[in-house]
């Protein structure tokens, strides 16, 4: 069963998704990267990355396609990387512009967070963004994240200097926002 939210499911990548992922990557507004990448990525590059993925029982990352439950439309991609097992991971999300402001990104983030906290037993989840992306900051805040690091003027893109932001959400904060779930993982501090 795929990971399921109110409006979306998170499922594995498939070869046919590569074209849509390239389009997201090559749009400067949706590429969701703190350092601008040239909009020249190709489907072939994405296929190579897709095919290079090896079977593993201890992957350090997870990459999902966000798919609308109603109609099965591609609604972006969400991932976690840099997994420190049972401790932390960094999440990232890219959503096509037509889904901005629809609640899809928030739904997908909540589905991934439930997986990271309830299944992987993480203690903290982080994300990186910058002060020139207020929509991303607002989305993260809606899921409970707060800004913990503001590295001044560390980002230059779109002709402007921006602050690099690290946002994080602690396990206890996540569960206090979700009273419907009980945290059965004991604390690890004295």
């Amino acid at each position, binding site marked *: 069963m795929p990971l399921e939210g109110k409006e979306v499911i998170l499922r594995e990548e498939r070869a046919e998704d590569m074209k849509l992922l390239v389009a997201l990557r090559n749009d400067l507004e949706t590429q969701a990267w703190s*350092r601008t990448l040239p909009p020249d990525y190709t489907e072939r590059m994405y296929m190579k990355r897709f095919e290079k993925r090896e079977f593993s029982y201890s992957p350090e990352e997870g990459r999902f396609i966000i798919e609308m439950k109603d109609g099965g439309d591609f609604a972006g991609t969400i991932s976690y990387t840099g997994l420190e097992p049972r401790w932390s991971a960094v999440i990232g999300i890219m959503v096509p512009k037509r889904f901005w402001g629809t609640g899809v990104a928030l739904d997908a983030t909540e589905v991934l967070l439930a997986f990271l906290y309830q299944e992987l037993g993480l203690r903290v989840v982080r994300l990186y963004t910058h002060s020139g992306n207020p929509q991303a900051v607002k989305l993260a805040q809606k899921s409970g994240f707060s800004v*913990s690091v*503001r590295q*001044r003027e*560390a*980002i230059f893109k779109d002709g402007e200097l921006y602050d690099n932001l690290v946002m994080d959400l602690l396990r206890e904060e996540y569960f206090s926002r979700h009273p419907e779930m009980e945290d059965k993982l004991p604390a690890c501090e004295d």
Partner: protein
Amino acid sequence: MAYFPFQGELIRLRAFEAEDIPALHTTLNHPELAGRRYIPWGFPGDFPLSKQQVEAIYKKWSEEEKGIHFAVVLRGSLELIGHAECDWGWDPHCPQITVVIDPAHQGKGYGSEVIRTMVDYLFKNTPAHNISAWMAEWNQSALRFATAHGFKECGRWRWDGIRDGKIYDGILVDILRPEWTRWVETQGEADHAA
């Protein structure tokens, strides 16, 4: 005189060589450096390191393409007293640095010369605008060291790890190019006054 930015009055920064491995093995295993020895991702941060692991660390450092790892040696005796890194792999606009001095050689101004040399190098020879460094919250001496050299704390990512029964945060400090220029000027005046 030829321009050579990789030395101070007391120290010199040079490349690591295979002959350094035994000394590096000793330094990296110093109990006081556990958890703050700044070795590559994937190597244990606080376990004792075998000679084989130190060889692998040396190899990894030598293969670095978007950054440089220096051996810190005393100018007189050429003794290895630590290591230091400039890393611009993410973006040369905002490189990161690290400085590690063997505890037996701390408190003698060597670290101060290393950080001044590296920050000067980055601001005078690369397009860097923001230079940052990170340290664990329990490593207060590193925070004092960084702030004494003009860096400012710009945040703490929470729950960086757990150590001796306590969860700790990671601290990021940074400095902007104009701030460094001002710091060097003020420091020059302070040195003069002293």
